């Protein structure tokens, strides 16, 4: 086994016991990067020299007896929205081509304190305003998109380049690439992790969090990212627990909400089947399944876009007038349309959000976690990223991918995407577990239980000489059949 193939827990333990040096791990990650990057184009910038230097420094520190913890010497990819001192930070846009931050974003600074090695900046859909990441390809099928907007981080983690990718999630942008690239993705509660120094798409919907190879790794990263920061007006000053504590405790007695609406409409049948199989697995481990109705389902998309678009247009107001030609056509059009949304509609979207929060709070009197598909479609064709439904309707990629993410962004509730299986065509699928505010530990526990019960989490895409990958459609159908689900 090559070092890049290790999980975070395995790599950390070997680094702690000095069986593996951060430099060896980083060199292995860089070798993997060079092997797959021509096919997936996950990175906007590779900071090879500084990564090797950081890894060497981490190794020296550990050799001298100072081990900072499980992230010490671990290579990560940072979404190109996050400021990184002295490293270009372009938001994958020509508009920011020359942006060179002088300080690190809060999340990067915290992770540096924990000892990480930054391998480079991963591509985002331009300014995070879209869910397909056109610059990048999906490592499981390079003719398809990696999802987005944190598509570079999804591709890098899915391809086995980095153990961790940082993402941001305004309408699903952590969970979408996680599901489509076969990784775990954690959107923490709104306000749990600081967004200071991360380019905004929509201040009242933006979240930051990790994409990782497994559930426990996400808990470890959140331990480092979480905490109050006055510079972020959404940041919440409350105690930060150890998110790995109790993660192995299982789901016995946990009430899992199974939606009867919203998450059941216009969803790929294989994804629906995999989600049902996950529910059956949770039930088989002692959870109670409770059928639920998602409140204000018909207003989710209107409310999400009614908030996101005018906030994005306000953020880009000067640049869209000064250099409109530097934006891609897709994002420029969205920003222009957002300028035409009335202030009263924007405020009313925020008021509907209040109603939604109250209704979801009531809903959680009967459940502890909601289980739902992370996205409605498999990885879409990169040349024409649309879904065509049974009745012939065509839906654009960003809509297909972000539609099911909206409730957790609007309510601020934490949501964890966990691989749920592979399609017959070998593409990853994911389920999301949505929890009460600040109960990340509960969804991590449920996610870890699902992970233990399957063989689909932690796989590295078979690319660039790596030979393992998806368990295959036959194995997957067997697993679904074992769970009592017909596909």
């Amino acid at each position, binding site marked *: 086994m090559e070092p890049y193939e290790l999980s975070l827990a395995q790599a950390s333990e070997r680094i702690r016991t000095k069986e593996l040096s951060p430099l060896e791990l980083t060199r292995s990650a860089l070798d993997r990067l060079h092997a797959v990057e021509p096919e997936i184009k996950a990175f906007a910038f590779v900071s090879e020299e500084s990564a090797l230097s950081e890894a060497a420094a981490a190794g020296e520190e550990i050799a001298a007896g100072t081990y900072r913890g499980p992230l010490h010497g671990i290579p990560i990819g940072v979404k190109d929205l996050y400021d990184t001192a002295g490293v270009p930070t372009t938001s994958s846009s020509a508009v920011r081509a020359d942006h060179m931050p002088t300080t690190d974003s809060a999340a990067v600074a915290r992770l540096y304190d924990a000892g990480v090695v930054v391998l480079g900046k991963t591509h985002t859909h331009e300014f995070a305003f879209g869910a397909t990441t056109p610059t990048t390809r999906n490592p499981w099928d390079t003719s398809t998109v990696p999802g987005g907007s944190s598509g570079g981080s999804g591709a890098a983690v899915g391809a086995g380049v980095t153990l961790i990718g940082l993402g941001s999630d305004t309408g699903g942008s952590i969970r979408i690439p996680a599901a489509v690239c076969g990784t775990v993705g954690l959107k923490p509660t709104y306000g749990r992790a600081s967004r200071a120094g991360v380019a905004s798409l929509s201040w009242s919907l933006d979240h930051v969090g990790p994409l990782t190879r497994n559930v426990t790794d996400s808990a470890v990263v959140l331990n480092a990212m979480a905490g109050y920061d006055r510079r972020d007006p959404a940041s919440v000053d409350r105690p930060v627990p150890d998110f790995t504590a109790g993660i192995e405790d299982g789901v016995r007695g946990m009430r899992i909400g199974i939606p009867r609406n919203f998450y059941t409409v216009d969803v790929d049948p294989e994804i629906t089947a995999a989600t049902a199989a996950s529910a059956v697995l949770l039930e088989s481990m002692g959870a109670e399944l409770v059928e639920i109705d998602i409140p204000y389902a*018909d207003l989710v998309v*209107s409310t999400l876009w009614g908030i996101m678009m005018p906030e994005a247009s306000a953020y880009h107001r000067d640049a869209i007038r000064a250099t409109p030609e530097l934006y891609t056509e897709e994002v420029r059009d969205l920003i*222009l*349309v957002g*300028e*035409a*949304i*009335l202030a009263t509609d924007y405020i009313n979207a925020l008021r509907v959000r*209040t109603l939604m929060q109250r209704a979801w709070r009531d809903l959680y009197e009967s459940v502890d976690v909601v289980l739902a598909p992370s996205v409605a479609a498999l990885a879409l064709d990169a040349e024409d990223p649309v879904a065509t439904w049974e009745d012939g309707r065509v839906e654009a990629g960003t809509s297909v991918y972000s539609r099911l993410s909206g409730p957790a962004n609007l309510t601020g509730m934490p949501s964890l995407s966990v691989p749920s299986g592979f399609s017959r065509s070998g593409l990853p699928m994911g389920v999301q577990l949505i929890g009460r505010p600040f109960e990340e530990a509960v969804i991590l526990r449920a996610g870890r239980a699902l992970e233990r019960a399957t063989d689909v989490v932690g796989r590295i895409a078979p690319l660039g000489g790596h030979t393992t990958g998806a368990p295959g459609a036959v194995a997957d159908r067997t697993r679904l059949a074992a769970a009592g689900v017909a596909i």
Partner: protein
Amino acid sequence: MDSTVFAALLQSAQLTLAPEQIEELSSVAIATLSSVRKVSEVELGETPPQSAFNASWE
């Protein structure tokens, strides 16, 4: 809503777009603005908006 209204809204925002660009954008814009308008058709009563402000200096 039609493309004339969209053009007027852009003008109000002091955005100067060529007529053909407005025409190209109109169908998407009208669909989006109509979708967003649904939030103003909800009976909201005294419901306050979810907006954050922290008066603390700490």
